[in-house]
């Protein structure tokens, strides 16, 4: 599954966690840091995996958490969650994948329609919350 924080140095992992409880600009800053590191050929040294897709997904999750916190602070009762649909066979994967689109849709549909106990800022996979 893409986007989890286990591929990063503890420094960068902390930076993601910090940004996710700060705001969206803080997450953007971290993405820019990755881009600069890649431009200098030093992303691995800096603590990132050499993978734009994975880093962008971690960024989406961080941004989702930051937005969820913001909505919570504003008292809007809007629930904001992120999920990984899994490895789904579509045009995007050029035919690779372990799940059908219908199976991939299960977690997003749960988050949209289901009773998720008021969870916001969560990261979900296979219809349950998982550790980021």
């Amino acid at each position, binding site marked *: 599954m893409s986007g989890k924080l286990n591929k990063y140095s503890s420094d960068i992992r902390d930076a993601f966690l910090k940004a996710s409880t700060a705001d969206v600009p803080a997450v953007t800053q971290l993405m820019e840091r990755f881009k600069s590191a890649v431009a200098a050929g030093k992303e691995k040294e800096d603590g990132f995996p050499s993978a734009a897709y994975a880093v962008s997904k971690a960024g989406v999750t961080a941004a989702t958490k930051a937005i969820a916190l913001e909505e919570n602070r504003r008292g809007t009762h809007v629930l904001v969650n992120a999920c990984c*649909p899994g490895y*789904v066979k*579509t045009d*995007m994967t050029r035919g690779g994948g372990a799940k059908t*689109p*219908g199976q991939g849709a299960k977690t*997003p*549909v749960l988050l949209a329609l289901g009773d998720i106990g008021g969870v916001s800022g969560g990261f979900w996979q296979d219809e349950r919350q998982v550790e980021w």
Partner: protein
Amino acid sequence: MSVERRIAVVTGANKGVGLAIVRNLALEYPRSPLRSGPLLIYLTARSDERGRKAIEELQNDTQLRTAKVLAQDGGDTTLSYHSLDISQSSSIQSFAKFLKQQHHEGIDFVVNNAGAHTFGSNLLDS
């Protein structure tokens, strides 16, 4: 009991996981806790042709027709297309403006399914 229409958006929904999400929303909505009246789902795509074709595909989908979940078959769900290119801020603003104008009371949920990638340059235009 008051009837409240639900409004939903699924981006990047002309194919792949996005299309499957729309399909499954229509199938699951009738027995979901969110059900309070009809459901309107906006399916977005970058191409009007592909977007409208996707809606047509769903409207002719055997499983959806048999389950009678679409309004055309007496069910809860209506499908509507709107263009959206998430790599263009003008497109995002335009769609947000449209939604605010059409639905002053707000909308119920958005599934940000659309993804974009590019090689070597900045993705967002501004």
